[in-house]
């Protein structure tokens, strides 16, 4: 096809800058192919994460021409190649090196969310009965590949750095998958309100827009959770009832 210029951010915690690389682009190539080619040709130590190369593992998240995307699912022929293509690491997380960021905060956050707690099995063999229509809503959330692009784009994390008070869209989706699981009996609403900061989300839907799995993060996960929190903690009628019939 043609030779194309890529501006790739190179550096580490201390410092970094965009460096230009030129490589031959052929039909059907995605951004990750170009990065690999550059790595093999002229930058052996260029750091990037990847695994499946098919949009299933969520490893190769980066910002391509300023948009948070998976490098393996971004086709070059959908882009203007007359201009250099810029590739930089996710900006909501600390850089490790080049395109690789330290996403360990996400793993720490997940560990703090109360795990799945099923009701007693319905059948003697330890199994449960659930209808397809009842699991579908949870299945949407369970499509999440943990690419953390939603976290990257969320202004509460990206611009306001509320990592200590706010768990981000990924973990609202995770909470929703647990809360709406037909078998789950745990109650996570107090955590969502207090330590997990769901109130910070002002539903700008940027997370939904960048989700490579097309999960309707804001409408299907965050808003219903917000509604549950409101019902539980802010509904005047409920409050009134509680005065007469306190929770156990």
């Amino acid at each position: 096809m043609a030779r194309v210029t890529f501006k790739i951010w190179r550096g580490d915690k201390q410092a970094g800058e965009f460096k230009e690389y030129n490589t031959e682009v052929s039909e059907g190539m995605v951004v990750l192919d170009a990065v690999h080619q550059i790595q093999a040709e002229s930058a052996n130590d260029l750091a990037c994460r990847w695994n499946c190369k098919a949009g299933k593992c969520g490893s190769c998240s980066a910002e391509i021409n300023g948009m948070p995307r998976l490098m393996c699912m971004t086709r070059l022929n959908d882009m203007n190649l007359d201009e250099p293509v810029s590739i930089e690491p996710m900006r909501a997380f600390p850089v490790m090196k080049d395109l690789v960021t330290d996403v360990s905060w996400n793993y720490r956050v997940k560990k703090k969310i109360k795990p799945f707690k099923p009701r007693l099995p319905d059948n003697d063999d330890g199994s449960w009965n659930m209808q397809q229509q009842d699991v579908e809503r949870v299945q949407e959330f369970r499509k999440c590949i943990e690419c953390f692009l939603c976290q990257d784009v969320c202004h509460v994390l990206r611009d306001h750095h509320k990592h200590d008070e706010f768990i981000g869209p990924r973990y609202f989706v995770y909470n929703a998958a647990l809360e709406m699981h037909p078998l789950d009996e745990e109650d996570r609403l107090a955590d969502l309100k207090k330590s997990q900061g769901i109130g910070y989300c002002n539903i700008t839907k940027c997370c939904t827009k960048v989700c490579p799995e097309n999960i309707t993060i804001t409408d299907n996960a965050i808003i219903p959770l917000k509604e549950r929190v409101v019902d539980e903690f802010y509904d005047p009628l409920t409050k009134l009832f509680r005065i007469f019939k306190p929770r156990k």
Partner: protein
Amino acid sequence: MAEYETIEFDVLIIGAGGAGLRAAIEASSTGISVGLVCKSLLGKAHTVMAEGGMAAALANVDERDSWKTHFADTMRGGYYINNWRMAQLHAQQAPDRVRELEAWGAVFDRTREGKIMQRNFGGHAHPRLAHVGDRTGLEMIRTLQDHGIHQGIDVHMECTVTSLLMDGDRVAGAFAYARELGKFKLFKAKAIVMATGGIGRAYKITSNSWEYTGDGQSLAYHAGADLIDMEFVQFHPTGMVWPPSVRGILVTEGVRGEGGVLKNSSGERFMFGDIPDNYKSSTADNPEEGWRYVTKTDRNARRPPELLTRDHVARCILKEVKAGRGSPHGGAFLDISWIKEKIPNAEAHIKKKLPSMYHQFKELAGIDITTEPMEVGPTTHYVMGGIRVDGETQMSTVPGLFAAGECAAGLHGANRLGGNSLSDLIVFGKLAGEHAARFAQENGKPAISDADVNSALLEALAPLDSSRATNAGGAYQIQYDLQEMMQSNVGIIRQEDEMLEAVQGIEALKQRAANVAAPGNRQYNPGWHTALDLKSLLLAAEAVARSAIVRKESRGAHTRDDYKNKEEKFDSVNTIVRMGKDGQMQVTLESIPKIPAELKQIIDDHK
């Protein structure tokens, strides 16, 4: 002298895919200390890419299914050189392991009665694969991960083991580098479970990720363990073929399970033209019967020939291409869109049942699979061979060293049935974790010599030696050259002279790898990592090539042009690879222990 950090565990698990995670969960449930090391981030291992489902005789969709049928299907699919004890345990325990995943939060697709849904797959007599659309692997790994993080397992992510350390014959620890800063870690352990997956990066056209460089096989081999049946590499019949950059990416067998058909350039369903004798009685002889089977509308209908075993379907596609009846880019057409002739809402049905296939073709190839056929061709997918293990305990021939999942061998024989891999991971992951924990409880701490640690450390640092001639693209180029050679010389159809050439070629590549230089420093340096992976990758490739030369017949996934038939003298032997006293690789044949009469009876009953 470079430093290293020392960390001690009772049991160390290497690899965090389905098998590694399941082993870690089991081992830690006994209250001992467990470490888990993985090359990538947690939850990104190859299991995540598994699509179609996990095979377990739950009998939710067809009550005629039982562990016995599953056992017989697995043995037939493996051409009877499977480890029959493993095939038995697998068939018996898979249903419990699947239900356990549900108890840990997995959300499978449901039947109308609200039970776990099961789908048809190649070589399985009944609908047997529990699944979630076509992203079952993601469901499995996420379930195990989300359960596992609350079990007190110490996880070391982005950490690669480069050597095993020994105390005499017994395994004693593992030496590793942590990717982020390139610092070294010494893991001391009483028992180690290998769960490192396969060797697919030895081939050019592959569905496997960068991680699949045969680490477990190579580490075990160098520790003195036997490998078996390494010649059996599964080429999945349906990988993407176009555009070039996605060549090899998997197209799930689930497409055929949901009614997808294979056609050549003249529109003929060529699979009807070549049905092997041992599957004739169970295969449909016309499209209508096949459709009734797929839709489960006729309990007596036989499966369509598209659902024959993977080795056979891959060969049939190649044959069409060679005869000039292939698709424009050298594959065959796989069409699921045709079901719109049969059912209303076909488009919605396809998107519901095969969402990631729809997405994958739409995004990467610009093809809408609900309206047009896909182009597919064989891709390197799985290695049936691997570390030889005891069927009961999953211990290798090295005391204290266990293996589970793809890096272990035995269950699948000469050819793996689709869906038996995910169930393999949870059945044998559990057993390996359980027995490794027991071994750790019954044995004291092994000792590791400083000299051994030091030589492991020097070996790991060697590619960074600036006095080595830097040859741009060094490690990558060696990998490409190996992939090209394995693809053309030890690929789907093999012959002696080409394989001998490959063995020589591998020797030459070893020489190059011994002097490979990686520019840059130790901090997250993929060039260095690729250089270190070469040792395992070359070892795995050599084991495949040498074993394939020794097996002078065609059986399952191992197809030879110079020995076209199955030979009786190979009917009940495994190929054994081990390191000789001189350090050279030795390949021998060993008889498989005699199958007990009751298991033989089950096989005969299902013929």
